[in-house]
Structures are given as C-alpha cells and as structure tokens.
C-alpha cells in the first residue's frame, strides 16, 4: 500500500502519481489504464477516491474515457511533454532551494548533480 502524505487530499495525490507514471512512460500514450478497482487494490484506497482522481485527470485531458472499454492515456504527446517540462521545473526548483540552504554555489550544485546524471554516481553522500 502506498503511503500518502497527511496534508493533501488523497485523490490529488493519486492524480499526481498517475500523471507522473504517464510522464515517465510507465503508461504510454494511448495505452489502457488499470481499472478503478485495480488501482484501489494497488494503492489501498477507496474505489470512489480513485474514480474522483481519474475524472480529474480526464478534465485535465491526460486520460480519455472510452465508456465500458475503460480509460486510456491521451494520445496528445504535446500535453504530456508540457507536463514533463513542468515536472522538471518543479523538481529543479526543489533541488535549487535545497542547494542554497546547504550553502552551495551554482558551480558546486551543478558538479554535484552531474556526478549522478552521468551515471558514475556511486552514492558518496555521508
């Protein structure tokens, strides 16, 4: 079961999760999404909560409802790409904020992240 944070409504956390999986290609464009019940069991939440999350994703255009055939990921790759860029921005902001708090300059922060981006990164942080 997924651990949810306490301050946000659970359905919004599910929206974020499914959206992240779409961005990461875990659910490719136009692929069929798991059913409400499958999500409910996987995440350990009420099916009504999943339903609400999926309807919210539909309103955002990420998900299409095909009646009894279930729900599918959008074929609109531009929309997914935009969401990906937004996610990159948000994570970069988090990272930058954290680096500043650690007293890091730009060069040091870039050096630190490069080590992991380029795949040579053994976790060296102690």
């Amino acid at each position, binding site marked *: 079961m*997924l651990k949810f944070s*306490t301050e946000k409504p659970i*359905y919004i956390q599910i929206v974020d999760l499914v959206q992240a999986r779409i961005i990461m290609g875990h659910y490719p464009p136009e692929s069929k999404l798991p059913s409400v*019940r499958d999500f409910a069991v996987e995440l350990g*939440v*009420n*099916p009504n*909560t999943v339903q609400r999350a999926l309807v919210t994703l539909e309103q955002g255009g990420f998900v299409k409802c095909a009646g009894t055939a279930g729900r599918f990921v959008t074929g609109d790759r531009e929309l997914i790409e935009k969401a990906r860029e937004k996610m990159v921005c948000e994570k970069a902001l988090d990272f930058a904020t954290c680096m500043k708090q650690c007293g890091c300059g730009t060069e040091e922060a870039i050096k630190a992240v490069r080590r992991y981006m380029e795949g040579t990164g053994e976790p060296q942080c102690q």
Partner: protein
Amino acid sequence: MSMMLLECRNLSKTYGQAAGNALNNVNLGLTRGKIIGLLGPNGSGKTTLIKLINGLLAPTAGEVLINGKAPGPESKMAISYLPDKTYLADWMRVEQILDFFVDFYADFDKARAMDMLHSLQINPNLVFKTLSKGTQEKVQLVLVMSRRAQLYLLDEPIGGVDPAARDFILRTIITNYSSDATIIIATHLIADVESILDEVIFINRGHIVAYDNVDNIRASRGQSVDEMFREVFAC
C-alpha cells in the same frame, strides 16, 4: 433508488438513569456506495449506535430506519454485522461455520469465503477454538464480507490483528464491496483505515460532532483525519 439506506432520527439510548445518555439525539442519513468511518474515543457510543442499527438494542427515543423501515427480519437480511465479540460456536470446524452461514443467509457466497480463507492461509478443517485470537477475528471478517449485503457494520474489524493482516483485511474490504453497498467501520485505529474511507462520522459522548467527506477535511483543514481526531478529542 433515492431512498436513504440508513436514517437515524432524533435517536437516543439510555442504559438506566445512572449511566446517562449513551446516545443523545442523533440525526444521520447515509447513502449507498460509501465506506464510512465511525470514529470516536472509548465509550463514545460507537457500539451502541451499531447495535441500534441492527436491532440488537431498542431506542429509548427516536427511530432508526433501514431502507425506510425499522429494524426487523428484512433489515437483518440487508445487514452484515461484525460484532466486537465472538458469538460463534467455538467447537465447530471453520468449514462447518461456513455451512452454518449458508443455512442462515441466502446471500452468503461460500466459494468466496473459501477463497479468502485460502489467501489468509487458514485451514478450514481446524476447530474454531484452537485458532489464535487474531485468526478467529480473520475468520469472522471472512464470514461477514462473504455476504452480498447492502450494509456492512464492522465493529473494530482490525483491533486484534497484526499490521500485515490489517493490510490484507483492508484490501479484502475494498475488493469485496460493491458500489450499491455501504460499509460502516467503527474503530479508533484511524491512521490504518483512513485511506479507504469516503466519509467519517466523529462521535463523542453520544453526540455526532462531525460528519464529512475525508477529502474535504484534508482540503479545508490541511490535516489528515487522524490528526483532526487527535485535535478534536485531545485529553
């Protein structure tokens, strides 16, 4: 079906004058397709409310209606009840108890029950009283969730089982409930059940102090139901 599944109107219950009111003028209307937490500290009236709904207690004042009717044979067919104490004949083997339920309830699905026992690795040939307390609780939950009822009343369903079994039980509840049924879960283990609830009823000293949607609580208060409970019922 626009009719309320469950309605309580000015419902009160007193266990003799010295004890005061166990329930005080409760008004509630519950619809179908919800998983609802009945949350309150010890002695707040949770079990009293549940027993009034299934007709084990008679109201001192007011009324309870299930599908518009007072508790009776019809409501007992519609309600599947998990009591807070064992009432099963403990000399029976687990499978005999299942057959007992087949005889009693037309909506009891034995195949489903056997399936759940298998998932929980409970041998149906064992005698009930030889089982551990936690396993006995699991068997009782299996019995209750194997009925195709309209209203499930679960009084402390996860109190005595380990955390791994808790997850299994919550999953069992999610997978086995149909969208035209409602489940009421009375518990004080809020953090464990919170993610599966649609709505919560907070009860204290016989009064309903809050009845709201879980996502509304998180959105408007910026805190989980568990945190809200600790705040509302701080000692």
